[in-house]
């Protein structure tokens, strides 16, 4: 089924893929952030991965580089999924934007930006989308205090 397609992808991307394994029926590619645009363009144009499902990040506080950035793509022609992973450090958590390839990346990159502080180079609209203006920090990072609130409306004095 998808195995033949995955084998072709693996062969084609062998020079840039640091790792390419099939896990739970999904091809997982690990790449260097510098190769992101080339890899995704190849997936989209040559292998029919025409749907951008999601972009998110994983925080590994003890590890250097600290963040994984993870993209998921789906092929509506081959009914196959592929996952692309890359690592970025805390000092410069920057990857290229995928907005020129997939318009739907725009909102999801905004969410990933506010939740993890990943910067998407080339996305000119990284305003908060689920959070609000003035929110400080990135709440899904492991070092964000669990109970820290940033209320917009001052609390009432409930003691009187």
């Amino acid at each position, binding site marked *: 089924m998808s195995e033949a397609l995955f084998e072709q992808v693996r062969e084609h991307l062998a020079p840039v893929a640091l790792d390419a394994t099939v896990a739970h029926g999904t091809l997982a590619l690990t790449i260097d952030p510098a190769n992101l645009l080339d890899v995704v363009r190849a997936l989209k144009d040559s292998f029919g991965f025409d749907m951008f499902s999601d972009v998110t990040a994983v925080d590994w506080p003890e590890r250097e580089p600290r963040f994984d950035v993870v993209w998921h793509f789906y092929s509506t022609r081959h009914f196959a999924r592929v996952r692309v992973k890359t690592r970025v450090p805390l000092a410069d958590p920057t990857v290229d934007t995928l907005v020129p390839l997939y318009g739907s990346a725009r909102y999801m990159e905004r969410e990933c930006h506010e939740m993890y502080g990943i910067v998407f180079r080339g996305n000119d609209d990284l305003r908060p989308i689920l959070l609000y203006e003035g929110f400080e920090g990135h709440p899904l990072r492991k070092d964000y205090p*669990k109970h820290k*609130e940033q209320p917009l409306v001052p*609390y009432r004095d409930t003691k009187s």
Partner: protein
Amino acid sequence: MSTPGHRAAPSGAFEYLTTKKDEFVGWARKFSLFPYPFVTACCAMEFMSVSSTLYDTDRFGAALPRFTPRQSDLLMVVGTVTHKQAPILKKVYEQMCEPKWVIAFGVCATSGGFYQNYAALPGIDKIIPVDLYIPGCPPRPEMVIDGIMKLQDKIARERHPIINDRF
């Protein structure tokens, strides 16, 4: 002897009654609640259930939801309120005319429930006064009906200073 067009009151009829003004006004007011449903989350399902035919809040005079705060006197906050939504809730509350009451429907509106994080407001009483809390995730319709009846008791016991000043 009777004149045409005039009818005497039948004997034994109810010609007058005595009561306290506050009690009378409270009794009238408690069966005329106009809820504004501020519905944000899954408790809405239970709200729909309790307000429709099977449980029927119309029996308590609290059936007709008004979708503008200016025409309502009972703010029902149904569901989780986030920090991002808190200014909207505050504005809705401030637009309601006196007298007004607030019900926190469900545990999220009561205390934030199991949300203790960056996103959720830990209880709407942090920003607006609340008359009645109905816990539960979601509350049973019977609990909501019990809550409405408790609120009616509270309204019936209240003093009504405007009326007292005028009469």
